[in-house]
């Protein structure tokens, strides 16, 4: 046939045309951008047809969040309207999904039955939202967040008000939650992991984000594992694995995305997690290219737009015979929730060859962390102030050497590129006289310098005279710099009081005071408010903080098992071979045949390798395996025994002697009083271990004069002794006072313990604590202040009413079972899961 061939023909067959036919599957962000890039390079090269499953033109998917929030309309987020397709002679087949690729025939088939042949095919199908296959996942009212239809469904549901549950606390889920909240719904976010956006944010930033969203009125449940979506005909609620039920009129699943690879897979293209492409975005079939979220390049798949732009450029270069190649992308994340600034980029998992630089400004709600490795920036997390995000991201991508600006890096670009480089003192010197040094007390640099010149020669003097650094203490470093600059050689150096640990400049006392004054109730909160310089503390500050919080807020405290030393986490003493010893409480050192039988049976059953009488008047079973602990405790519990806390920074034992009941010298019932004392004090957590003894007469057979609290019975009453220690450094007790009745002895004991609990530094026994604060101080609080003593004793008993529980009982009943179980067990060539 001789029919003339039109150059502009929209072809249904490939042969004979001058232009090649490029068919694009996917009218989304990557597909259309590729077409734009190709047109800009060589507008006449291809005849182009674009298929899109969505019945609309190309729009900016990431702006669906502002559309949901009511900040933008659909018209405002259109990238290419119909005239773009027309002007460029592109045929748009919208609302018609491609259902098959026939590679041999070089054709594609769409849902409407249309068959289109191609010379080159571009797959840009994006991703499918992942739906957790729990019962009820397909109920009406359960939707995903991917395209405009989803947004329309959410908006019409929101119009009726009610409760929305968003499953997934990642970027997408939080943007959905924010939008629905603004649309007037009651929003609960369920997140499986302990921190929000855990892939982009560290624990500290995730915590700040959670607090902020909660303050705005959203309910955020972390560690929430969805078991079922409830409803009959329409969703009515969500049920969690722990049994909690949450009412819902709308459920949004935003738990992740999966590259949309079905078409490619059915066409036998190479597919792993995504459609595998080379550096030129060509698939295993040279006539087929792929781009966007559906591809896997050098092992990576992406879920953000920035990498797509780079891919599109490489693809267009290749498709116009000018190959450049794509080498993968480094990505950064921002959350599009108005008023909340979050930025993260690169790798912030850290490591010892990395240095973390952390800055926290609690009053402005700012947390910044940059990670430096071999003088290069490798990661950044910013919360609150993200102005320098792009600067950090740039440093990260260019891998510029930052050694020259290292000291100033965390303060941001403006600061780092100024004159005040390197030395923090010169940075402070460069500040103007009006610059505020102490935010709490509103003290300027000029005022601090004036007070130093007027004679305040050290930190305490500055604090006393102009109040700078006298409150929260976060400006201590600045004040010390000013002392150094102003006094020069005369300055005696930073104060001698040592900070809690290397993560902070605060002393134990500073921290305890702030916990109470600022009502800090969780470890991340303390770290943020008190400007911790590490992301999650260390093995020395975490247990201390956990204790300080427990002591300050007994009724609200949430235990952080990861901040307990092993013995307190396992409620048993770890031994050198990794087994444990188990010590049941033996009240006042008194036992019964039944208890002894139960101990003997337990020793047999759990193959204790040694049973020993301890120096604390009770029995210790050695060599118990961590897996057996809950069972042995259950057995001992059944015989009426509770944990002896032989492992804890807590009350250990109350030693007694036989006393007046039997002994010819006994003056009072020392055994009975010892038991009463132990019943009152057991289970109490303290700064360090605490031991008590009651002796029936001054012969002192219970060694009460080397205990933290000792009672020596005499004819006329009870002599109370404090601050003894029989351990590393022997210290005899100090005489506190004498009381007449058992009731008084118990009240003084409770008050003394509470004073120690509230004021001593973590890991201070009473002996060094008393040496530091002085016996007179203790007397003034316990002996001379009747009202104060009573209040201390009441606070102790209040704390005991909440915290005095047998940890064994909870464990035997299954609490924290994971601590005792292996994660799995491996036999060669087989895996047995233990769950």
């Amino acid at each position, binding site marked *: 046939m001789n029919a003339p061939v039109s150059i502009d023909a929209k072809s249904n067959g490939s042969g004979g045309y001058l232009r090649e036919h490029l068919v694009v599957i996917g009218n989304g962000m990557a597909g259309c951008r590729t077409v734009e890039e190709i047109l800009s390079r060589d507008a006449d090269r291809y005849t182009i047809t674009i298929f899109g499953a969505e019945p609309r033109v190309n729009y900016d998917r990431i702006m669906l969040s502002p559309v949901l929030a009511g900040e933008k309309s659909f018209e405002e987020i259109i990238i290419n309207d119909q005239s773009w397709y027309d002007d460029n002679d592109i045929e748009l087949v919208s609302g018609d999904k491609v259902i098959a690729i026939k590679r041999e025939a070089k054709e594609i088939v769409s849902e409407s039955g249309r068959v289109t042949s191609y010379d080159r095919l571009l797959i840009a199908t994006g991703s499918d939202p992942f739906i957790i296959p729990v019962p009820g996942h397909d109920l009406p009212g359960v939707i995903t967040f991917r395209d405009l239809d989803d947004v329309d469904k959410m908006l019409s549901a929101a119009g009726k008000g009610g409760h929305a549950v968003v499953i997934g606390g990642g970027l997408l889920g939080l943007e959905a939650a924010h939008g629905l909240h603004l649309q007037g719904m009651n929003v609960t976010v369920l997140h*499986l*992991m*302990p*921190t929000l956006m*855990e*892939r982009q944010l*560290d*624990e500290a930033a995730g915590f700040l984000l959670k607090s902020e969203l909660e303050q705005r009125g959203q309910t955020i449940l972390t560690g929430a*594992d969805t078991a079922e979506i409830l409803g009959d005909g329409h969703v009515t609620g969500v049920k969690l694995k722990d049994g909690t039920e949450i009412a819902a009129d709308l459920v949004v699943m935003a738990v992740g995305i999966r590259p949309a690879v079905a078409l490619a897979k059915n066409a036998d293209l190479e597919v792993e997690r995504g459609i595998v492409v080379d550096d030129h975005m060509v698939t295993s079939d040279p006539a087929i290219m792929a781009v966007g979220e559906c591809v896997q390049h050098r092992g990576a798949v992406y879920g953000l737009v920035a990498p797509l732009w780079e891919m599109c450029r490489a693809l267009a270069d290749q498709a116009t015979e000018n190959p450049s190649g794509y080498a993968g992308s480094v990505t950064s994340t921002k959350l599009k929730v108005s008023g909340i600034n979050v930025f993260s980029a690169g790798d*912030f*998992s*850290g*490591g*010892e060859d990395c240095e*973390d630089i952390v800055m926290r400004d609690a009053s402005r709600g700012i947390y910044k962390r940059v990670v430096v490795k071999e003088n290069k920036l490798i990661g950044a997390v910013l919360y609150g102030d993200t102005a320098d995000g792009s600067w950090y991201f740039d440093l990260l991508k260019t891998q510029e050497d930052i050694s020259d600006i290292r000291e100033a890096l965390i303060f941001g670009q403006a600061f780092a590129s100024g004159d005040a480089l390197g030395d923090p003192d010169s940075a402070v010197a460069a500040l103007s006289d009006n610059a505020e040094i102490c935010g709490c007390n509103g003290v300027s640099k000029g005022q601090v310098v004036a007070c130093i010149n007027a004679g305040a020669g050290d930190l305490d003097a500055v604090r006393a005279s102009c109040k700078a650094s006298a409150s929260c203490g976060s400006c201590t470093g600045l004040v010390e710099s000013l002392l150094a600059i102003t006094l020069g050689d005369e300055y005696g150096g930073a104060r001698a009081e040592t900070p809690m640990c290397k993560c902070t400049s605060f002393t134990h006392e500073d921290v305890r005071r702030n916990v109470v004054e600022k009502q800090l109730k969780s470890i991340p909160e303390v770290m943020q408010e008190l400007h911790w310089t*590490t*992301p*999650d*503390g*260390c*093995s020395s500050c*975490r*247990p201390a903080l956990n204790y300080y919080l427990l002591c300050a807020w007994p009724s609200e405290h949430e235990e952080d*098992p*990861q*901040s307990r*030393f*092993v*013995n307190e*986490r*396992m409620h048993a003493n*770890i031994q*050198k*071979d*990794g087994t444990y010893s188990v010590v049941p409480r033996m009240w006042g050192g008194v036992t019964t045949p039944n208890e002894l039988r139960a101990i003997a049976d337990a020793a047999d059953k759990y193959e204790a390798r040694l049973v020993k009488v301890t120096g604390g008047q009770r029995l210790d079973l050695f060599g118990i395996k961590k897996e057996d602990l809950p069972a042995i405790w259950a057995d001992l519990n059944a015989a009426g025994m509770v944990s002896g806390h032989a492992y804890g920074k807590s009350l250990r034992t109350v030693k007694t002697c036989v006393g007046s009941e039997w002994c010819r010298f006994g003056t009072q019932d020392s055994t009975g009083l010892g038991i009463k004392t132990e019943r009152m004090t057991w289970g109490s957590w303290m700064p360090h271990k605490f031991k008590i003894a009651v002796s029936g007469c001054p012969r002192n057979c219970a060694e009460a004069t080397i205990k933290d609290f000792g009672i020596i019975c005499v004819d006329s009453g009870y002599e109370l002794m404090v601050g003894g220690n029989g351990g590393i450094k022997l210290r005899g007790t100090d005489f506190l006072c004498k009381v007449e009745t058992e009731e008084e002895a118990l009240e003084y004991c409770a008050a003394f313990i509470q004073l120690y609990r509230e004021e001593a530094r973590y890991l201070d026994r009473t002996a060094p604590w008393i040496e530091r604060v002085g016996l007179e101080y203790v007397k003034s609080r316990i002996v001379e202040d009747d009202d104060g003593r009573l209040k201390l004793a009441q606070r102790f008993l209040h704390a005991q009413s909440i915290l005095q529980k047998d940890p064994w009982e909870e464990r035997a009943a299954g609490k924290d079972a*994971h601590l005792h*179980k*292996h*994660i*799995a*067990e*491996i*036999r*060669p060539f087989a*895996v047995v*899961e233990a*769950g």
Partner: protein
Amino acid sequence: MNDAKWIDIGPVDQLLTLGARTLPVQGGEEIAIFRTSNGSVHALINKCPHKQGPLSQGIVHDTSVTCPLHNWRISLLTGEALGEDKGCVPVIPVKIDGGRIYIDRAATLAGVM
């Protein structure tokens, strides 16, 4: 998806943030699996290079664990003792994929048969 290289040992959420659990290998060493606050997962032979303390029972912070017996700090990335202390414990390659933990088969079974 157990394959020649990786063994699936279950979902990531079995590990608490800053927590650790153990994986006994029949006829071989016990392996300790740790999770950091950034969500990354690491595995070491569960024996401190100092005196064989069970590292799985230590306190995890940043990318290190402090041994429960005498407070040596061990890197989760390299298995090396940090600071003044000297010693090293073998690291077993692990990865997370689709919310599950995979552990290197060869390294796990090394020395076992």
